[in-house]
Structure formats: structure tokens, C-alpha cells
């Protein structure tokens, strides 16, 4: 659906959905990074 067909409210909601997806993806990347660091540091500590 083109932008012109969307009401301002629908456009606002689409923006919110996009931000939520971006935040979700960012959080996933960050979490995987943290897991990696914790696992590596745990192995170094246990060596």
C-alpha cells in the first residue's frame, strides 16, 4: 500500500511497528554478543 493511501494514524502505527522491529533486532544482536562475551570469559576464568 502506498504512503498516500495510509491515514496519518496508520502511518504512525507503521512507524511504531518499524521501530519495534529495529529495537527487537538490535536487542537480539546485543544479547548474542553478551552471551558470547560471558561464555568466553567463563572459559578463560575456568582455564
Amino acid at each position, binding site marked *: 500500500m502506498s504512503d498516500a493511501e495510509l491515514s496519518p494514524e496508520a502511518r504512525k502505527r507503521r512507524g*511504531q*511497528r518499524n521501530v519495534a522491529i529495529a529495537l527487537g533486532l538490535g536487542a537480539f544482536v546485543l544479547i548474542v554478543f553478551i*552471551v558470547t562475551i560471558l561464555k568466553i570469559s567463563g572459559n578463560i576464568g575456568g582455564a
Partner: protein
Amino acid sequence: MHKRAMSETPSRSAFAGPKDYFALLKPRVMSLVIFTALVGMVASIADGAEIHPGLAAISLLAIAVGAGASGALNMWWDADIDSVMVRTISRPIPQGLVPKSEAAGFGMLLSALSVALLALSSNYVAAGLLAFTIFFYVVIYSMWLKRSTPQNIVIGGAAGALPPVVAWAAASGAAPLDAWILFLIIFLWTPPHFWALALYREGDYARAGVPMMPNVAGEESTKRQIFVYAIMLAASGVAPYATGLGGLVYLAVSSAFGAGFLVLSWRVLKSPPKSKEAPKQLFAFSILYLFALFAALLVEDLFALYV
């Protein structure tokens, strides 16, 4: 864009916000899963398991997201049922806010991510158990049992009972007897909990064609079965004390709440036909019962670990 979508006037789905997608995850069920999983994890740590607190938190998050994903897949599969039941008609799919296909995609994506994340943050035993939990809830319960047998929530209850076992395995890499005792408590708690709900929502399930116990076996039979499960639940509720998983505080709490559960189940059994008050009381108390028992275990374990 797909031709059919192009020809449609802006549907309600254009107005869906992030909170509508979050609602697909069944946040209230998720909060119960987080709580029972937390208790399983802390009990495992109190039992000697070692896991970094950060990895423990991320593992709990993965378990919660896995539970949410199965909720989204359940809403996708049961959209037709949800649209005729008062209890579920306000969900995002019946409201037209989230298309069914998006709920399916959302659920599958989160299922894969949660299992992968749990494998990364803990171990493959826990990740495998989480994958099995999602499979059991979506395929065995939602797709198969829910519409075919009044034993649907008895067998399907296994999915809701697994989170503490998954969390125990996440911390220790194993699932010993104590973890399965926690499973057993939730497993035996599920039928009286949902049948109490079904007794005062009987019309809802009958209209949707879901074979819940009251509209298949009748009210009297359901009440008898609730009482039988209450006896088994009250007995299994004190089992953690016998194995050493729970202490004296737990014994006191589980005995008192088990007695309360039995009394309210007896009242349901003796309540007049079509009476809704006693089942409502039992339903409300059942939530408190599970919370009290698991909270008692949590407090005892935290006390043993840090005080």
C-alpha cells in the same frame, strides 16, 4: 505487494501497533512461565548447579520468548475458535489487527530464535526441551487434542508444566527427579484449574465446538474429576518436602494451600447445578495456590543461597 492486499481498503491491520503483536505472546501466561521457570532455575542452583547470573537471566528470557512464541502459534491456529468465544474475542487476530499469516510467521520466527538463544546461553538439553515444549503445545495440544478430546488440557497441560524443567536443565544440563516433581505439580494443577474455568464458561466452549469436560462428560462428572485431581494435587504438592527440595516453610505453605484447594473443590462438588460461584472461587484460588507453592520454594532457596 500481493494483488489481493492491493485491492483491499485499508484494513484494521494497518492500525496494529507493537502492543498488538506483544498481545500475541499471551503476556499473562508468559509471566507465569517466567515465574515457574525462575523457581526451577533457582532450585537447580541451590542444588549445586553453576550458571553465570547474566546467562541465567538470558536463559529465562529465551524460555519466556519460547512460551510467547507458542502462544502466537496457538492464536494463529485457533483464530476461528477465538472469534466466537467471549474470553478470546478481543485477541489481535479476531479483532482484525494482526493477519493470521503474520501471527504464524511471528510465532515461528520467535520459536527458532528462542531455541537458538537458549542453546547459546545454556546447553542443548534445555534447548531441546524448549523446542519440545513449543512442539507439544502447538502441534499436540492446539492442532490435535484441543478439538478432539475432553482430555485436551489434561495431556496438553504437560506443555505448561515443562518450563521449570527447561530452566533446571538450563542451569545444570540435566533434569533430575526434583525438576519433574515441579512438572508434576503444574501438570496435576492444570485440569482442575481449567475445568473450574470451563464450568462457568461452559457456553463459551460449547459454542466454539471445543470438547471441554463439562460440555462432553457433563457438569457432575467434571466436578467429581476436579475433586479427584485436587486430592492428587494436594498430595503431590507436599512431595518436594519428602525429597528435600522444599523445607519446613514449604511444607507448611503446601499443606495449608493444599487443604484450601481440597475444601474449595469439595464445595464445587457439592454446589448446585449451573452454580458459578464455587467454580469461580476455585479458579481464582488455583492461581494463588500455584503462586504460593512456587514462591515458598523460591524464598527457601534464596534464603539458603544468600542468607
